[in-house]
């Protein structure tokens, strides 16, 4: 029972492995994938109240990990559902694509439960490898010819970041003589002010900074977002980031004794991420690149919650990343639907969307206003709570800079909204949307609004989850 979700994902992976051997029809694959994802979500929900240790203490099942498992499974289900028949992926490798997605999912699910450095490392690698392979699987029929380059870039930067992480882990092992997070947590306060411990901690964090795309580990973002298929980008933009936040919470709660040094570095990373992401996003023409840069800025915002080292700050970070995943999924749902052949979309390709697909236009607008942090959507509430948490810790300058960034960000989000609502369709045809996509987008819109207006429930849940690991 403790291990049921993971076993289900493994089983699903096996199922798809068998599917890759035969030659199943498109519909079979898609239906299988959606059904499997739903079952995974169901098992995750079923196991929400489980607690216990597995694998000699390397794997811990607690409320914190279980909630993240549900979130990851739910986001994956959404990605599976809205994939417009995976138009962006080479036709003959679509079953494999789902297989890799599932394996990556397995890696992430195991990551959030891992409480031992080696297990964390391997789980992270498992989830990353699958995505490294998914990036170059895009078909050249979409008019994009640098998917290999994007894949290699993703791989190289990923390897570099995990190299840093491994090096940091070796330092931590050298200092404490243990690889289990509990053991490290016991010893770190004693080592608190040793520079080696600080450096080691930061190096370990860098592996997850890479996943979350925080400056200076963000270089892969624009090219990978642009080069990968729309569905892949949707996955990269939403799902691994949630797991990264989970692990960052686990790790920064260890680093909280290390005081000023770590705090200052996190602040610098946060500010630079926000400014770099927002300023670069201002000049983008490609929608996915723009979302990529905006993702860097949002990652900076999430750091704002982590560097409070407080329960409420962590809870706001969890709330924010979930909101962020929702908004991104909504954006990518629209992108996948509008890009009928799986091609990349320029911002100008959205012109007149309000006529071509009113529901999608509404979804995109809500998602973008939410990303921009306009009330009453989830993006605003999240941002508000993060700023509030940071100001409680007296980081006035940081909060002011973050607030200024919100104002910068408005411009590029608005320019997309302007295209969808305030311009004519310029001869672009109607967008075919199925019932599934429409209802999914309406559900996302509802959740974005409801979570924004009534955040109490979720924040309380996140807080009680985080309490289990502090």
């Amino acid at each position, binding site marked *: 029972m403790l291990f049921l979700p993971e076993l289900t994902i493994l089983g699903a992976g096996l199922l798809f492995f068998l599917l890759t051997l035969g030659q199943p029809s498109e519909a079979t694959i898609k239906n299988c994938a959606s059904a499997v994802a739903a079952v995974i979500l169901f098992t995750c929900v079923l196991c929400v109240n489980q607690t216990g240790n*597995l694998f*000699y203490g390397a794997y811990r099942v607690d409320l914190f990990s279980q909630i993240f498992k549900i979130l990851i499974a739910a986001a994956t289900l959404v990605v599976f559902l809205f994939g417009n028949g995976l138009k962006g992926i080479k036709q003959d490798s679509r079953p494999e694509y789902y297989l*890799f997605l599932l394996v990556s999912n397995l890696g992430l699910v195991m990551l959030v439960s891992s409480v031992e450095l080696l297990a964390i490392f391997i789980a992270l690698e498992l989830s990353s490898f699958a995505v490294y392979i998914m990036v170059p699987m895009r078909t050249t029929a979409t008019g994009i010819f640098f998917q290999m380059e994007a894949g290699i870039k993703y791989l190289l930067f990923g390897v570099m970041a995990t190299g840093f992480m491994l090096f940091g882990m070796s330092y931590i092992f*050298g200092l404490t003589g243990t690889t289990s997070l509990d053991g490290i947590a016991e010893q770190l306060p004693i080592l608190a002010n040793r520079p080696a411990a600080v450096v080691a901690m930061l190096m370990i964090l860098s592996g997850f900074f890479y996943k979350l795309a925080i400056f200076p580990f963000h270089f892969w973002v624009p090219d990978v977002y642009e080069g990968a298929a729309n569905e892949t980008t949707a996955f990269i933009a939403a799902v691994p980031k949630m797991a990264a936040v989970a692990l960052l919470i686990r790790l920064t709660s260890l680093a909280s004794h290390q005081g000023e040094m770590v705090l200052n570095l996190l602040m610098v990373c946060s500010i630079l991420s926000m400014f770099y992401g927002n300023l670069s996003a201002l000049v983008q023409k490609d929608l996915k690149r723009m979302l990529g840069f905006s993702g860097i800025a949002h990652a900076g915002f999430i750091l704002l919650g982590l560097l409070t080292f407080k329960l409420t700050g962590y809870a706001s970070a969890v709330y924010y990343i979930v909101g962020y995943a929702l908004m991104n999924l909504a954006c990518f749902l629209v992108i996948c639907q509008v890009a009928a052949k799986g091609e990349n979309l320029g911002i100008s390709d959205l012109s007149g969307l309000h006529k071509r697909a009113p529901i999608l236009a509404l979804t995109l607008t809500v998602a973008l206003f939410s990303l921009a942090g306009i009330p009453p959507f989830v993006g605003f509430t999240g941002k508000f709570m993060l700023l509030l948490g940071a100001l409680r810790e007296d980081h006035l300058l940081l909060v002011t800079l973050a607030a200024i960034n919100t104002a910068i960000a408005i411009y590029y989000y608005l320019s997309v909204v302007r295209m969808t609502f305030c311009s004519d369709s310029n001869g672009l045809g109607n967008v075919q949307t199925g019932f599934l996509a429409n209802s999914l987008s309406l559900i996302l819109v509802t959740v974005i609004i409801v979570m924004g207006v009534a955040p109490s429930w979720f924040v309380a849940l996140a807080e009680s989850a985080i309490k289990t690991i502090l």
Partner: protein
Amino acid sequence: MMKTLFSADGLVGLLFLFNLIVTVVGGIVACNAERLVRAVIGLVVCFVGVAGIYFFLNSPFIAMMHILIYIGAVAVAISFAIMLAAPEEKMRTGPTSPLSGPIGLISTLLLISGLVSLALKTEWTSVTKINDGSVKTIGIQLLTNHSMVFELISIVLLLAILGALVIARGGREE
């Protein structure tokens, strides 16, 4: 008290130093060689050095395995791949900024000096030898304390094989 170079400890130290030099030189060759084959040789040299470090860490079995797998299998596989694919030997592509060399050098030196001084200044807790590094203990460790990692690695390997197949197949068709 200064130990002489020719005592037992001193010789071991010398050997260790030699080992490190082999590793680093191998790594540099692997990164900078103009020809791919030479890069593979550099990699092999580097692997030998790493295996030596394992030996110094009281794990002769792992040192053996490292040589066997990485040099005997991985490096050979890479060599085969190079021979089969016969890639063009021109490695350098595109103009690079004249500043990139010096900047890279300076930042590397900064990083290295930082890490070195960090390593020297830190009082490392000397870890006592936890076990004898024999096959049996390694096996026990892999199936107890590190069983999860052990299982996960098998999935990683499976994934790597499948991924290589998928990418290679796609590459051939186009």
